[in-house]
């Protein structure tokens, strides 16, 4: 069994490596994207002060301070989340207007320093609590998103189109005439893609980190585990689409139906915090959302395995479920 799996794996790897155009495109596109994004988002910061208020929603009449001009007030229903955002300077100050009035300010933030003066002018009695933490640049926040997006396209389209092409050309039918089983064939495809994706992602990680000066806050091995499970889940998702269809047009359409919602809703470009509950619910169906949540937690916050365990479990479970469904519905030949 291992011999057959390795034979298919080796041949598929050779095919990919010799397809220079695809290889180059897979590697260069995300680098270009990150460099471009870094350039675009390196301009002036947003002009407003941003204050998080611990409340389910903002009631401007609850406190006179909430009428201040040039300050954007955002509701933070959970204090812990607000604190996290303050640490990363996503907000400049976190305020609890219930008596006694308390506030948290990031001592590393210049804007926090100014907005604190403004608050103390109307609430001299407010209790100060401080936190520290460097600002997370948008480009740092975007970095895991770009890696994840590249992984998603490579997993879904790479595997999806390849298997459909094999089926359409009759190559799968020829393989079916050998002792090779569907499980062995699919496992070889998953492994081949996994190795290639991990290699490309590692090259991208090193290259982009150097370009934008990114430092991983967490454990690199844990990050590799996140990458492996994310790639497995998304390759397996691609196989469920490619398992039985023979039309490249149909499969292309179905893959687009999958990738576009993930592009928009999985948090590649912007955070889903503050978006409607149903959007967040839908977003968390996608493996990419869990992949990015886990990757950002490790890369930006230095989270440990326990903190991202739910994401890892979801990715592993979906990988198994998609693979099982793919093997069950697999067709060697055009019906």
């Amino acid at each position, binding site marked *: 069994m291992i011999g*057959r799996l390795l034979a298919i794996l080796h*041949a598929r790897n050779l095919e990919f490596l010799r*397809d220079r155009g695809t290889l180059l495109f897979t590697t260069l596109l995300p680098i270009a994207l990150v460099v471009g994004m870094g350039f675009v988002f390196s301009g002036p910061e947003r002009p407003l002060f941003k204050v998080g208020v611990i409340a389910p929603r903002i009631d401007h009449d609850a406190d006179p301070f909430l009428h201040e001009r040039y300050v954007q007030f955002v509701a933070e229903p959970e204090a812990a989340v607000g604190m996290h955002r303050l640490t990363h300077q996503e907000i400049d100050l976190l305020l609890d207007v219930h008596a006694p009035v308390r506030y948290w300010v990031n001592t590393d933030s210049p804007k926090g320093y100014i907005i604190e003066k403004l608050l103390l002018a109307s609430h001299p009695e407010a209790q100060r609590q401080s936190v520290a933490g460097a600002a997370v640049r948008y480009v740092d926040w975007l970095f895991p998103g770009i890696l994840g997006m590249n992984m998603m396209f490579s997993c879904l389209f790479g595997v999806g189109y390849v298997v459909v092409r094999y089926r359409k050309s009759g*190559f799968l039918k*020829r393989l079916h*005439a050998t002792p090779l089983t569907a499980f062995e064939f699919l496992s070889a495809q998953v492994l081949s893609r996994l190795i290639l994706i991990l290699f490309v992602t590692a090259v991208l990680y090193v290259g982009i980190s150097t370009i934008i000066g990114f430092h991983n806050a967490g454990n690199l091995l844990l990050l590799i585990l996140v990458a492996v499970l994310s790639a497995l889940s998304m390759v397996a998702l691609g196989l469920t689409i490619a398992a039985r269809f023979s039309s490249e047009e149909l499969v292309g359409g179905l893959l687009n139906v999958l990738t576009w919602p993930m592009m928009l809703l999985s948090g590649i470009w912007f955070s889903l915090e503050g978006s409607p509950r149903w959007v967040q619910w839908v977003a968390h169906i996608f493996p990419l959302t869990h992949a990015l949540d886990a990757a950002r937690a490790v890369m930006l916050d230095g989270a440990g395995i326990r903190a991202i365990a739910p994401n890892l479990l979801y990715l592993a479970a979906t990988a198994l479920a998609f693979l099982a469904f793919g093997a069950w519905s697999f067709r060697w030949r055009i019906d």
Partner: protein
Amino acid sequence: MVHVARRAATAANGRGTRGRNPLGSRACVEPQPHPDRVSAAILEVRDLVKQYPATTAVDGVSFRVAEGVCFGLLGPNGAGKTTTIEIMEGILPPTAGEVRYRGDALGTRFREEAGILFQKTALQDFLTVRQSIALFRGLYARGLDVEEVIRLCALEKLADRDSRKLSGGQQQRLLLAIALVNDPAVLFLDEPTTGLDPQARRSFWELVESIKARRKTIILTTHYMEEAELLCDEIAIMDRGRILAMGAPRALLAEHFAEVLLELPRRDFPPAARELQLNLIEGGERIEISTPDLEGTLRALLGAQVPLQHLRIRPPNLEDLFLELTGSELRP
């Protein structure tokens, strides 16, 4: 192209038929295997039926193939040859009936020991000839050395070439090499020379001859009667999903034809000659006369003032047998 002839309604005009097939041309012939062969049958096909929504592609086919024999399934396109061979290969499930390999249902052992060349196959892109063979070698537990297969199929000079850059004949040689990579006990060749030029076809036949010399069992489908006559020890003639006749080519010809065939241009055949008691087969511009009495027929033709300058005398071949059995033209 296959010779196409139109048979005259000889039965209707009462000038005699060669109707030695008492079951009629549509009958399915039940095989009567030679007693010596029963125990040596490597493949056995029993009451095979394959139905599609609009058609019955295979309609109750049964036969046995003895070990070491080259067995040919002959018939025009659409006769059910490819469907039959693909069911035998374990690629298509039958609607009814079964195929047994060495007495057992097709399973892991069969897949390990069968070599298959499909009518159409694409290989993986970006691989050389040697790598394509090595890929398939890796899928079998036992087999030949890759270099040996390359030698066997005369692919030495092409071994490092991209498999997509081969000519039709070279491509078929590579696909044959892949079919041989597990040193199969039984080799399936589905119309292996269709679309090849005459030279490539001859060279492929030589390869098959060399494989036959290694005592491999070969199942071959073809609509080239010449190919079947050259390569096959036994044949089954199929049409419309049924087997019409089965046996060794020479034995079948001897059974169905005790005659020779005379061919004349239609323009040389005067209406008066039609009054002669001759067994006529009319095909396009030529008229064929089937007769067991060559001298008597020649005398009768001369007596009827038929010019014999363009006369051709030949023994019957499998194509004639097909026409004899189906009573219709061979659909190319």
